[in-house]
């Protein structure tokens, strides 16, 4: 009974916070109120909740939280997170768009970048905002929709090809326990192309932070979007990161999730394939150690015929950490000739680590090709011996093999500078 009381406490606090701050939040209040209602029906998931049973959200949300932070980072501090030198930089500091540090003065033709709270009268914003992420599907989507304090709205106009990557830097730096809800909307119109990199870091933080971030991505007909999440909140960040995509005819959307660190990271990828001849790729790599918990949930919803989706998730689990991959593929009755593939491979380097992997295929069409594969093992002793027999120390042999394991996912990064950055991070990690 005590548990239930505690859930109510967190939930009640969140609702009370909403009531007191709703007057100052951007956008349409009715959307927020509906979302809050959806949240109050669902509450904070506990360990009995099927979707959240491997992440202890009650523990993560225990205690008092502020819902924004006035702490400001210096230009120098922010610069250290700008690892893509030539990118269009958008800084989201403690959940809010930071215009001072964002580099959006001379944007390429067809690209518009707005502070999301200034975008509410934009037609594309009004057409798409909160139309696809379902507040009844997940309490964190509901909470974010009700309580979001800021973020960015990016619009790529019809036929515009934006070659420069757009780097959205999510920085958290707090002096008191803080619960942040940031919200991004990215609309890529017909025939347009864009590359989006979202990175998540904690800098100079002295208290607990819980970042509940939602990014919605609309990929219109024939558009191509390449999307990356680089999560590196070290061993103290709590991050729930939802990517909601919707794709139209003949579009290609590729999303990559690199979880390099973080105390608790939950990724929800909800992909909707809403027309024919769509391609969706989901690549993920997670490296966990210490007592980190990383949970990747994917939902690929094939609604129409003739689409392809492909998921490749790999993880290396060390020490007492735990990783979860839950991949749901939903093939609706109309979605004939669907090809949907999923692969999850893990290396477990300690006896105390945990891997939970669960493919869930729900297929209602009869002419489809779907497959899933999963494996969990240790590093291959024969390979280690082969390398040692050539003079490599056991440690270098293992390091080389871990790199090799990760390289299948790292190799899918199309931006060279980003690939080098991730490779360097991995090298450092296995030193």
């Amino acid at each position, binding site marked *: 009974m005590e548990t239930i009381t505690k859930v109510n406490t967190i939930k009640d606090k969140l609702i009370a916070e909403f009531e007191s701050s709703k007057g100052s939040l951007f956008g349409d209040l009715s959307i927020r109120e509906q979302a809050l209602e959806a949240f109050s029906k669902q509450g904070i998931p506990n360990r009995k909740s099927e979707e959240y049973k491997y992440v202890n959200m009650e523990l993560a949300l225990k205690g008092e939280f502020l819902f924004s932070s006035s702490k400001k980072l210096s230009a120098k501090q922010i610069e250290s997170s700008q690892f893509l030198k030539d990118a269009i930089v958008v800084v989201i500091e403690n959940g809010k768009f930071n215009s001072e540090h964002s580099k959006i003065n001379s944007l390429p033709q067809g690209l518009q970048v707005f502070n999301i709270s200034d975008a509410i009268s934009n037609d594309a914003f009004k057409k798409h905002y909160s139309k696809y992420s379902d507040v009844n599907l997940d309490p964190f989507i509901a909470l974010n929709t009700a309580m979001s304090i800021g973020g960015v709205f990016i619009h790529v106009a019809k036929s515009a090809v934006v070659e420069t990557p757009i780097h959205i830097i999510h920085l958290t730096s707090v002096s008191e326990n803080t619960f942040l809800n940031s919200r991004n909307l990215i609309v890529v119109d017909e025939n347009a192309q864009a590359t989006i990199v979202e990175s998540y870091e904690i800098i100079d933080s002295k208290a607990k932070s819980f970042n509940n971030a939602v990014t919605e991505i609309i990929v219109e007909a024939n558009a191509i979007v390449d999307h990356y999440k680089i999560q590196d909140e070290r061993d103290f960040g709590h991050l729930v990161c939802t990517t909601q995509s919707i794709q139209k005819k003949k579009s290609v959307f590729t999303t990559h999730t690199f979880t390099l660190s973080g105390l608790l990271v939950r990724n929800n990828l909800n992909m909707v394939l809403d027309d024919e001849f769509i391609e969706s790729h989901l690549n993920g790599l997670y490296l966990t150690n210490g007592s980190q918990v990383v949970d990747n949930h994917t939902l690929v919803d094939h609604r129409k015929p003739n689409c392809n989706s492909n998921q490749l998730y790999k993880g290396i689990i060390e020490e007492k950490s735990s990783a979860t991959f839950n991949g749901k593929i939903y093939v609706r009755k109309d979605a004939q000739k669907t090809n949907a593939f999923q692969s999850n491979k893990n290396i477990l380097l300690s006896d105390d680590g945990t891997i939970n992997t669960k493919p869930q295929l729900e297929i209602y069409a009869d002419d489809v090709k779907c497959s899933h594969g999963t494996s969990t093992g240790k590093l*291959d002793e*024969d*390979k280690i*011996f*082969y*390398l*040692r*027999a*050539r*003079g*490599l*120390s*056991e440690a*270098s042999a293992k390091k*080389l*093999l871990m*790199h*090799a*394991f*990760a*390289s*299948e996912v790292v190799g899918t990064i199309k931006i060279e500078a980003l690939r080098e950055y991730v490779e360097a991070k991995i090298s450092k990690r296995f030193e």
Partner: protein
Amino acid sequence: MLSIKNLHASIDGKEILRGINLEVKAGEIHAIMGPNGSGKSTLSSVLAGKEDYEITEGSVTFNGKDLLELSPEDRAREGVFLAFQYPVEIPGVSNINFLKTAINEIRAYKGQTPMEAKDFLAMVKEKQKLVELDGKLANRSVNEGFSGGEKKRNEIFQMAMLEPKLAILDETDSGLDIDALRIVAGGVNKLKSKDNATIVITHYQRLLDYIVPDVVHILYKGKIVKSGPKELALELEEKGYDFIKEEVGA
């Protein structure tokens, strides 16, 4: 160079090597022949340091050092090289990068500075030619998608790069067609000098037409039952292994 005395080794409690004695001097080529299950591969694995085997008796000294006390990497660094019967495929690890790491770790062990990049590349080029290994193969992941012959050639290429004092070729001829066999053997012969030694482990005499041994040993039920000049291999080929069985009365 190598001195094996009364070596006994077992796996999962089953004794495979039952008292091997072997002396190999610099400049020599020794062939070890034997039927399936005689312990040929066990001997090569034990010498390279595979941990699956338990040494129950005997000793192995290599240039005055107790080889059995050394880790597999230290054996390699001291100059022992095993060309594997079944080289493993290692997707994602580039042949060249791994060899560079190997060479530099061996150099560090000897107190030498890392090799200059341009010297390394020149060496790669030269040694590639020696075993007629396509430059593309050298740059690919270790053995990934290589044919049987390419894997064996890659073993000899690695041997050429690492310049071992003692090379143990474990059934390097298995699965090779005659052209590949000639190339592999040619590579081994070119690498031979008065300072290094080679142990050729094989089931068939065929390879010994190309790599001519100084001594041939016949391994049977975990022991060397007969040693002789290169003609012994021909006799074995002619009469088959049954003649050994009769001779040793097994």
